[in-house]
């Protein structure tokens, strides 16, 4: 009779939901949370760099260049994409593939809108004289928001793959990609933006 290990990664007795008890899923979720832990340091270092250079404008534009109302709208869009993503995950948990796909596509569209907003914003800033080579402020601003945008784009790609897999055959635990893991990644990208929005745009100290 096998004895259970008794530590924080083991499931004892009743589980909250089916997926928590499945050993393979636990392994994948552990890996995703660990990966997100590393991303905390990646974005942390870029945010720290930005904070270091927040006033180092070298004669060029600084925080006054920001269009808070516009960026607020983008932030709202990304925030709502977390809602659509969690609803998608919920639908797939109930095995409603069609509903899940609808919410996934909604999430991807919101993500793409956010990216469109970023591109528009950057184009405006470049026209107003802020580029990556204008000043350390410019370099750190574009690096931080640029890498964030790349993460959003990567997320949209993964969502597209999920939709494709769902269409071709049901998304199943046998395949490495699954909605819950992509959802974790997506929410993380959203909370990074929450921090960026507060620290870069709103705080302005």
């Amino acid at each position, binding site marked *: 009779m*096998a*004895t*259970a*290990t*008794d*530590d924080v*990664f083991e499931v004892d007795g009743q589980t909250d939901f089916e997926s928590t008890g499945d*050993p393979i899923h*636990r*392994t*994948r979720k*552990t*890996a995703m949370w*660990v*990966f997100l*832990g*590393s*991303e905390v*340091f*990646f974005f*942390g*270092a*870029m945010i720290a*760099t930005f904070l*270091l*250079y927040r006033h*180092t404008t*070298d004669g060029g534009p600084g925080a006054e260049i920001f269009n808070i109302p516009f960026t607020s709208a983008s932030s709202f869009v990304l925030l709502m994409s977390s809602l659509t993503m969690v609803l998608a995950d919920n639908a797939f948990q109930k095995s409603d593939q069609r509903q899940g796909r609808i919410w996934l596509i909604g999430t991807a569209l919101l993500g793409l809108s956010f990216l469109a907003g970023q591109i528009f914003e950057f184009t405006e800033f470049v026209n107003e004289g802020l*580029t*990556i*080579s*204008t*000043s*350390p402020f*410019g*370099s*750190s601003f574009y*690096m931080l928001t640029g*890498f964030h945008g790349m993460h959003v784009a990567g997320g949209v790609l993964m969502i597209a*793959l999920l939709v494709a*897999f769902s269409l071709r055959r049901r998304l199943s635990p*046998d*395949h*490495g*990609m699954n909605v819950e893991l992509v959802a974790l990644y997506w929410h993380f990208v959203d909370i990074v933006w929450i921090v960026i929005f507060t620290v870069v745009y709103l705080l302005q100290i």
Partner: protein
Amino acid sequence: MALTTTPDDLGYTPPSTKGLWSWITTIDHKRIGIMYAVSSLVFFLVGGLEALLIRTQLATANGTLVSADAYNQLFTMHGLTMVFAVIMPIAAAFQNYFIPLMIGARDVAFPRLNAFAFWLFLFSVVLLTSSFFLGGSPDGAWVGYAPLSTQIQEYVRMDYYSIGAQLLGFASLAGSINFVATIFTMRAPGMTLMRMPVFVWMSVVSSFLLIFSLPVIGVGLWQIFIDRNFGGLFYEAQASGDPLLWQHLFWIFGHPEVYVLILPAFGIVSEILPVFSRKPLFGYSFVVFSGIAIGFLGFGVWAHHMFTAGMGPVAEAGFGLATMLIAIPTGVKIFNWIGTMWGGRLTFPAPMLFTVGFIAMFLIGGISGVTHAVVPANTQQHDSYYVVAHFHYVLFGGAVFGYVAGAYYWFPKWTGRLMNETIGKWNFWIMFIGFNLTFAPQHILGLDGMPRRTYRYAEGMGWDVWNLMSTIGAFLIAVSFLFFIYNLIASYRHGKVAGNDPWDARTLEWTTTSPPPVYNFEEVPVVHHQDDFWYRKYGVDEDGRAVKLTPEQAGKPDVVVEEHGMHMPSPSYFPIIAATGVALLGAGLVFISSGPIGFAVIALGAVVALWGIVGWAAEPVTREMH
């Protein structure tokens, strides 16, 4: 125990093990471990050659073997090669091979990710080394301080540095995430965290160090890349950028990195000592918790590499104090190791010789490290040969001796044959003498003012004799490695057959055949103790002495019943495709400012990477699921 199970009994058909294709598509952690080990050895020869060239240049005053420019590339590549292409992969080799075996698992959590990490590592070190022939090698020291690393944009040299290290970081990150997921969720029933072998504990700590520190240097390396190729101003003093930012970002990674290099060796030594002392490890919990403490504290000492950078007395005092603090958990381990040996029935086959050598040499290196923590003394020592002496004592006397000990200890498990003891003893003594002859004089040279990273020194400084001694020592080290390689090859062919458990050891890898079958264990063990294997073999008499159990007393080992057969992953070619794509992307980025070829290679790399990743995601983990 002969293998009597057929594929029908196993519930699956093991993949072919013949031919190059079987290696290219392997996802077996043991084969991946072997590939890491072979790569490490090959690059040790490369890094060793770089070292011999350096030492020959410095053997006499006003050396003329190499130019200053070539010398800069040599010491930069020597450092990069040894750290990233030798020590990291040999640690990865042992971790890959033995973590699953030691925790009673059949493979790691993500076998394809494991393969991807290896191939990306290999292609990245090949890319980095190819720099010698394609545009010039990095020449800004392994630390790549700005603005030296950012300002010379006519050559691609430091782009190789920025991208090469970045790619290696991805590979290590993938490997580390894999190990953490494996160790946390795939242990055999009954193997609680506090029953895991110390090697596994040290591996999980070192994995977390990488997971948290790699992203930080990742940011720094991108900043160097952006400054070099896109007009970024992160480190441009003229625009009020601060080059010191790079130093911080680098060392926030760089310091945890040195613990990453040594912790697995601490783990190996903690496995070897009990076996050859015939005693359990003294103070297991202390060894584990001190490892965890080193992990945490390791994130708080980075600026001790920057005491001469003008941070101010508050920062310097703080980091100096933290550095002295971190010597404590390390010291605890040394006492535990000595305590393990004390009162034991000691024998000294080769693994034990290298282990004891490790303890002594690491101690010396550790002590010189503590002298660095004293800030005023540090200003004397910084950038002198004293520092070179310190880190070679901990990295060679420590890490290399530890990993060679591991090689001698585990060679029988990998190959089924023991390494030759006589050659092993010659290997040890020549290496020990050669190593000390090379690096002990460097303490004196450093305190006498000889700067590091300088291609020649003048006559009349009083440095000639010590440098000559050091160079002779280096060649002796080279000779000792000839013994090592000869021993590896000869023993592989004609070594004494080892059987499952030649050392009468304590951990689970010794319960299975040598080498293990692809699925590791016929039956997954259920674990009831730390050092569970030992307790299957030995009971304890009234005086507390170990008494070998008879088969009747030992009984049947407690195992897991797998009703549906084993779930084993299938080989795949997508990991190597994905790794090729990422490496090509990297290669293209190195040449991004050199014209259209860079963009073409980036585009090609992106397409190949996408093919690899999408194929990987679409492919089922196992062809046969029950």
